[in-house]
């Protein structure tokens, strides 16, 4: 194991260079943020992930942005265990009716100021599950949404650049 760690030290970083904040996400957030009084969050964001009916594909890529290659934490963004510690809810899935109440309660448990990000086609539009008797539909049909990240599932780079845009905006808010 020591050998392994030494090798890792000499091999140089495996982490990819950080992407720029997504211009599209910046624009979407800019529109939402205009006029809204947001408390300055500082250059860090705490995210609580909520699976509201996903196929678990989105979760795999959310996991991936935490691996050493994408390493989300170097930007000051990290996942937390409780909504009470979160600034952001990252919601996946076509919000099943069986999860709608849990999602609402999770949002209620998140302190202000807070942001809701809809992650993946299902969360953005209902995706392939739209129209089912068991789904409410997009996340915004249940809770207000600040940012949408399309993709099925979104690629890790897209998740990173969208979250970086959120960090910029949150940081610049009054």
């Amino acid at each position, binding site marked *: 194991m020591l050998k392994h760690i030494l090798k890792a030290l000499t091999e140089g970083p495996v982490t990819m260079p950080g992407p720029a904040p997504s211009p599209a996400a910046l624009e979407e957030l800019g529109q939402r943020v205009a006029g809204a009084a947001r408390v300055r969050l500082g250059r860090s964001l705490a995210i609580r992930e909520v699976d509201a*009916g996903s196929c678990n594909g989105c979760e795999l890529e959310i996991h*991936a942005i935490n691996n050493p290659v994408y390493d989300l934490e170097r930007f000051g963004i990290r996942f937390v265990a409780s909504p009470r510690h979160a600034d952001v809810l990252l919601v996946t899935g076509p919000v099943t009716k*069986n999860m709608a*109440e849990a999602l609402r309660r999770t949002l209620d448990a998140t302190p202000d100021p807070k942001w809701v990000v809809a992650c993946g086609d299902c969360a953005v539009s209902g995706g392939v599950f739209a129209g089912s008797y068991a789904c409410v539909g997009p996340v915004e049909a249940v809770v207000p949404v600040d940012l949408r990240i399309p993709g099925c599932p979104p690629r890790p780079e897209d998740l990173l650049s969208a979250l970086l845009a959120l960090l910029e905006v949150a940081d610049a808010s009054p």
Partner: protein
Amino acid sequence: MHVEEDSLHGVLGRIGRPVADHRPWPRYTTTPDGWRALLDTLAGNRWTLVGLWGEPGAVHVALREDLSGDLGVVSLDCPDGRFPSVGAVRPAAIRPERVIRDLFGLVPEGAPDGRPWLDHGVWGVRAPLAAAPVPAAAPPLPEPYPVLPVEGEGLHQIPVGPVHAGIIEPGHFRFTANGETVVRLEERLGYVHKGIEGLMRGRTVADAARLAARLSGDSTVAGSLAYARAVEAALEVTPPPRAVWLRALMAELERIANHLGDIGAICNDAAFAFMLAEMGRLREAVLSTADACFGHRLMMDRIVPGGVAVDIAPDGPARVLELAAELRRRFPPLVRIYDDKASLQDRTVGTGTVSVGLANRFGAGGHVGRASGRGGDARRSPSYPPYDDLEFEVPVLTEGDVNARVWIRIREVEQSLGLLEQIVRRMPGVPRDVAGTTPLPLVPVTADRAGEGMALVEAFRGEMLVWVRVGADGTVDRCHLRDASWFQWPLLEAAIEGNIVADFPLCNKSFNCSYSGHDL
């Protein structure tokens, strides 16, 4: 009517009449008396329940005689909306029956558990897939769910979920503990029920494939493959040989990626984050290879009825061999670290044990079954091309603990690396047509005939079943998808008994059952 213990097809032939156009294994229709006789037989023998599902006015049960590998389906019409409960003789059937009642309104008579399962009372409809769904109120709050009573001095309950602490799927766990020790765990699932089987109805077989691909995102390749094979069986379509080999290549990449991710996550739940980081790097190497080869990191929607939707990139075969070589170099030192770390072994050895008897009773497959003495693997039996032509071993252990499940996954990664190499070297070449272009390995799935098909495919979690009836207009009349998790989730309840609450994440991760795949 009593049936002596006999061969599967002997019994099924006696109690039922074969149905035409069901492939590749026979399906029989039977009478209530025949069904009861079958239940008597099931109470006393070891045939494995491989599936139990409903449709408006009928139930179907799929069975396998493990020794011979024979498979068959038995169906019972339920004109009065009732059928004798299979769960009364086979505990593995209890949850599937609760689903049949929730979705189709068919009542299992004599069932040990009459509570709903997927229906939490908020759909605004009861029996949504029945011939005549029953409109219902749609209260904003789910119905209260009666958890099973537990009595005893000093017991307390710990409710967990549906929203958990990590980046995982939602489900509710009710622990009853005596101090630190878990006396009972009761699962409550269904939170991510999306109505997949309802959405598939009436769609073209091509359209419905996108839903099968999203049954469980981590098994998207396996789900697409099982669905495609079922449709191809129903319509007697043979996919081009190159497509068959490309499908296996994708399936093995998916298996390796998932096992790597899970080995890392299991170690992380034993507070050894180093392994999560290292395995995360390896998993990433697999996903980026998949992306470079097939244009999608999870290879979603790449397998379709009739063949594959994309061929491998021109440099794909070389990349796969490079990946295999890289993993053969980087994986074994990490395995040695796992094996050497006493602090890690202390957490995984003897934790979360599933007995061989219990695994057999529930017919559990995948790493859960194979760590507890069940050697089944759909790639071996019933097998499907190209695996009948490839060399690989199916690892089996009998300890049944977290450590055994980790070792099964380690061995499976090694076997799958060998399969990747064999597939790349032996895959049929790219055909060129007269114009010099390379057509996709895909044949049209003609929609001028009806048929019923069934397929069993080995996903990374275990055997996945898809049963489909395609109508003469080329649309899906009924499709049932059964993830391996169905027969593993109940065993998790048993595995945690007598362990400490703090070891639950470890046990859970070593199973890694799918919520989405189970909740449909």
